[in-house]
C-alpha cells in the first residue's frame, strides 16, 4: 500500500480551517440523523463515501494504492480473509484446507454454490486462473507475495492444489491477499478492455459505473453468496481531494463517510452531533530510517543514540494531534507477532548522550534528512528531529524533495536519513519482516527497507520462521528478532497510526479492519 497523495496545492491556512470549523459548528447542522441507535437492520440506500483520491484500476493485480485496493476488495474475494482484528485468516472462497506431511502441497476445498455477479458458478478453474495472474508479469506489483508458489492444479471442480517450492508457512495468509481475489477463468470469455470496464467477481458489490478520476459507483451483487447481504443498494466512492470539502460534504449530508479527515479535525469531529468519529487500529508504523551506506550509521551506537534522543510522544502530539500511539518495536500491533511487553527504545536523553559518547563520533556530525515537500507531517517530524539531535552534536539539514522523487530516492537507497513507514498487505508477519528487517538481497531485495542493514542472525531467524508451522514457535522467533532489532536498530521506531474515519450516525456496522478492508456487506443505513 502506498502513501495517500498529498494535495500540494490545497494550501488551506490554519486560520481558514479554524474559521471553517467554528462556523460550521456554530450553525449546528449535523448530517441528517438523530444520533439514536436503531435496533433493526434496515435495507436499501446508497452510501456516498468521500475519499482523498480516485482508484487507479479495478484490476487487483495491478494496483498498489489504498483507494484501489480497498474498493477492489468490495468486488473480488480471495480464498481466505482476515478476521476483524486482523490476527488470523478465516475462510472466504475456500472453506478448509489440508497440507501434505512435507508441507509442500496445499489442497484448498472451495465454497460450493458461490456465484459470480453474472450468475456463473465459481469453480477451481477460476481460482487457478486468478492466482496465476498475480505473478504473470515481472512488472506486476504483487509478484513477490506469490513467489514461493511452484504450480497450481485443479483435480476436481471444487478443489485447488497449490504446490510450493519450499515448506512455506505464510501461504494461507498469502491466499488472503486482495490481489489473489477470484475472477472468472479467461475473463469469462471477454476481452480485457470489456471485462475491466465492468469486472465480474464474487464480492458483495459490482461496478455500475467508473468515471475515471471522479467516482466509482458500486451496486449490490444480486448473486452474492451470503444470504440476505448486502443490505445496501450501493456504495459510491467519490474522490474529494480537499480535507475541508470532504468534511463539509459530510456535515451537509451529501456524503455519509469521510475517509481520513485531517488529524487537526479529529478532536472536533468527536464532539460533533450527528457524526461518529472512529479511529480503527491499522498496521501503519512510522520510522526514521538510517542508511548504513553512510559511515556514521554503520556505528550501532550512533543509531541507538538517535533512537534514544527522539521524543516520540511529542511527535505523536504534533503530527497526529495525539491520535496515535508511541511505537515500542518495529512490529505493528495489528499483527499476531506483536509483543506489547517489549519496552523497545524510548526517549531518554541521558542514554542518548551515553551512546553517542561510546560511538566513533562523540562530537557529532552533519547529516541530511529526506522529507517530502508539501508533506506537512514529514516537515513537522523533520523539524522535531532536527532540534532533538542538536544536543548530540548532530546537525540535521532537511532535504526537501517532492513525493515521487522521495519514493525514488528511498527505493534506490539514495538518502542519509529518511522517514519510512510500513503497512502490511497480508495478515502474516513475513511480508514486513522480509521487507523491513531482512538484509542482503532477501526475498524482496529491499535491503531492510532500503537501509542496507544486514544482520545475519536476523536474516537466519526470518528464513527459519518462514519454514516452520506452529504459530507459537514462529512467535518465539519473531520475539527474538524484535529483541535483536531493539539493540541493533536499522531505524528508529516512532509511532503507530490508526485509520481515521468520520461518518454519519445513520451508518451502522461500519468497521475497518487493520488491513483496510471496509466489509460493506455488513453495513446498513437507517432512514
Amino acid at each position, binding site marked *: *500500500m*502506498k502513501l495517500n*497523495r*498529498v*494535495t*500540494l*496545492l*490545497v494550501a*488551506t*491556512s490554519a486560520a*481558514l480551517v479554524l474559521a*471553517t470549523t467554528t*462556523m*460550521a459548528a456554530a*450553525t449546528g*447542522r449535523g448530517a441528517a440523523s438523530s444520533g439514536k441507535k436503531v435496533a433493526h437492520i434496515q435495507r436499501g440506500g446508497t452510501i456516498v463515501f*468521500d475519499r482523498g*483520491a480516485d482508484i*487507479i*484500476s479495478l484490476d487487483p493485480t495491478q494496483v*498498489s*494504492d489504498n483507494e484501489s485496493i480497498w474498493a477492489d476488495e468490495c468486488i473480488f474475494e480471495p480464498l481466505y480473509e482476515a478476521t476483524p482484528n486482523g490476527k488470523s485468516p478465516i475462510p472466504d472462497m475456500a472453506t478448509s484446507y489440508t497440507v501434505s506431511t512435507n508441507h509442500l502441497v496445499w489442497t484448498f476445498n472451495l465454497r460450493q454454490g458461490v456465484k459470480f455477479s453474472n450468475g456463473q458458478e465459481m469453480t477451481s478453474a477460476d481460482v487457478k486462473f486468478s492466482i496465476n495472474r498475480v505473478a504473470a508479469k*515481472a*512488472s*506486476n*506489483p504483487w*509478484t*513477490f507475495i506469490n513467489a514461493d508458489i511452484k504450480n497450481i492444479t485443479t483435480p476436481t471442480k471444487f478443489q485447488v492444489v497449490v504446490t510450493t517450492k519450499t515448506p512455506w508457512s505464510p501461504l494461507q495468509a498469502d491466499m488472503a491477499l486482495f490481489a489473489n481475489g477470484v475472477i472468472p477463468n479467461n475473463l469469462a470469455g471477454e476481452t480485457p478492455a470489456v471485462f*475491466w470496464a465492468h469486472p465480474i467477481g464474487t464480492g458483495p458489490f459490482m461496478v455500475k459505473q467508473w*468515471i*475515471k*478520476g*471522479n*467516482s466509482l459507483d458500486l451496486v449490490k451483487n444480486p448473486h452474492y453468496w451470503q444470504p440476505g447481504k448486502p443490505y445496501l443498494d450501493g456504495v459510491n466512492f*467519490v*474522490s*474529494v*481531494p*480537499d480535507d*475541508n*470539502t470532504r468534511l*463539509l*460534504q459530510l*456535515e*451537509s449530508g*451529501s456524503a455519509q463517510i469521510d475517509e481520513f479527515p485531517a488529524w487537526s479535525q479529529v478532536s472536533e469531529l468527536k464532539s460533533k452531533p450527528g457524526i461518529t468519529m472512529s479511529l480503527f487500529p491499522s498496521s501503519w508504523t512510522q520510522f526514521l530510517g538510517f542508511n548504513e551506506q553512510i559511515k556514521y550509521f554503520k556505528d550501532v551506537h550512533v543509531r541507538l543514540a538517535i533512537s534514544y534522543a527522539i521524543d516520540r510522544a511529542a511527535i505523536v502530539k504534533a503530527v497526529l494531534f495525539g491520535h496515535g500511539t508511541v511505537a515500542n518495536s518495529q512490529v505493528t500491533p495489528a499483527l499476531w507477532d506483536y509483543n506489547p511487553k517489549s519496552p523497545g527504545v524510548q526517549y531518554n536523553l541521558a542514554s542518548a548522550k551515553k551512546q553517542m559518547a561510546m560511538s566513533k563520533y562523540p562530537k557529532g556530525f552533519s547529516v541530511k534528512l529526506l522529507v517530502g515537500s508539501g508533506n506537512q507531517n514529514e516537515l513537522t517530524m523533520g523539524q522535531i528531529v532536527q532540534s532533538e539531535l542538536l544536543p548530540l552534536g548532530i546537525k540535521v539539514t532537511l532535504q526537501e*524533495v*517532492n*513525493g*515521487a*522523487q522521495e*519514493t*525514488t*530516492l528511498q*527505493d534506490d537507497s539514495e538518502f542519509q536519513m529518511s522517514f519510512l513507514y*510500513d503497512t502490511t498487505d497480508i495478515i502474516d508477519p513475513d511480508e514486513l519482516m522480509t*521487507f523491513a528487517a531482512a538484509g542482503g538481497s532477501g526475498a*524482496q*531485495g*529491499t535491503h531492510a527497507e532500503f537501509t542496507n542493514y544486514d544482520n545475519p542472525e536476523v536474516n537466519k531467524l526470518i528464513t527459519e520462521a518462514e519454514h516452520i508451522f506452529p504459530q507459537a514457535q514462529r512467535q518465539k522467533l519473531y520475539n527474538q528478532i524484535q529483541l535483536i532489532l531493539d539493540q541493533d536498530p536499522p531505524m528508529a521506531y516512532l509511532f503507530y497510526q490508526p485509520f481515521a474515519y468520520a461518518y454519519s450516525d445513520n451508518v451502522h456496522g461500519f468497521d475497518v479492519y487493520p488491513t483496510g478492508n471496509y466489509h460493506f456487506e455488513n453495513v446498513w443505513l437507517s432512514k
Partner: protein
Amino acid sequence: MLLRYVGRRLLLMVPVALGVTLLVFFSIHMVPGSPAYTFLGPHATRTAVAAFNKEWGLNRPVPVQYWLFLVRLFHGNLGDSLFYQSSVSSLIASRIPVTLTLLVGGAVLSIIIAVPLAAVAAVHSGKLIDQVIRFTSTAGLGMPSFWIGTTLIILLGLVFPLFPVGGYGTGLWGHADSMFLPCLTIAISIAPTLLRSLRTSLIDALGSDYVAFARAKGLSARSVLYKYGFRNAAISAVSVLGINIGFLVGGTVIIENVFALPGLGQLMLTSILDRDFPIVQGITLIFSVIVILVYLFTDVAYALLDPRVRL
C-alpha cells in the same frame, strides 16, 4: 481580412503549442522521480522496476521518447496513461467539459458582476457609492480563490443550503447546479480587476470630447452611457478579461480541488505527482491550445469593438 488574420493565427498556434510540449516534455523528464516507483508502490523490486520501464519505453533516451510522442501526435494519438489502463485522449475528453464550463461560466458571471458595478461607480465617480464599490473590489482582489471557494461552500452550501457542497452532480441540471459556486468563485476573483479597469476607462470615456458632443446633441444619458461610454471602455476591459482567463486556466487546479470537480486541473495535478508523463503532456497541450484560443478571441473582439484596430 479578419478571416485571413484568424487563419494565420491558427497556423501560428501549431509551432507555439509544439514549443510548449517540447518544454514540458523535457522538464518533466528532468524532474527526478520515476513513475515505476509510484505505480509499483513501496514494495517495488529492481526487477519489477526494470520490467515496467521496458514495457513503457521509459528506458529509451528522452529525445527518442519525444520523437515517438510527436509521431503519435501527428496520428492524433496522445498515447496511453501509465496508471489508468486507458488512452490519454479519452481521459481528457471526459474532463474537458468540466474545465470549459468553469472557465466560460466564470467569465460570464464576472462580466455580469463587473459591468453594472463599474457603470454605477463611473457615473457616480468620487461619491460614496463609488468608494464602497472600489473598496469592496480591492478586498475581493486580496482574497485567495481557495478561501473564497470554501467560504461560499459554508455560506451557500451549509448555512443556507442552496447549492451542493462540491461535486459535479448528475444530469444537465445537476451539473449546472454544482457548477454555480465554482463559477462564482472564479467570477469573484476576476471581477475586481475587470471592474476597476472598466471603471477607469469608463470615466475617461465619459469625460471625453465625443461624449460631451453626444450630450450636446441631446442624446439621453442612457444612450450616451451605452453607445459611447461602454463601447469605448469595453476595449481595454476585453483585454483585461482575456489575460485573466489565460491565467485562470492554470488556476482551475485549485478551484477543482476545493469543489471536488473532475476537471483537467485535478487530473493534471495527480498526474504530475505520479509522474504519469503521457497525461501531463496531453493536458499541457490542451491547456496551451485553450490559452492561445482565448488570446485570439480577445484580439478579434478587440478589432470588432474598435474600428481603428486593423488585423
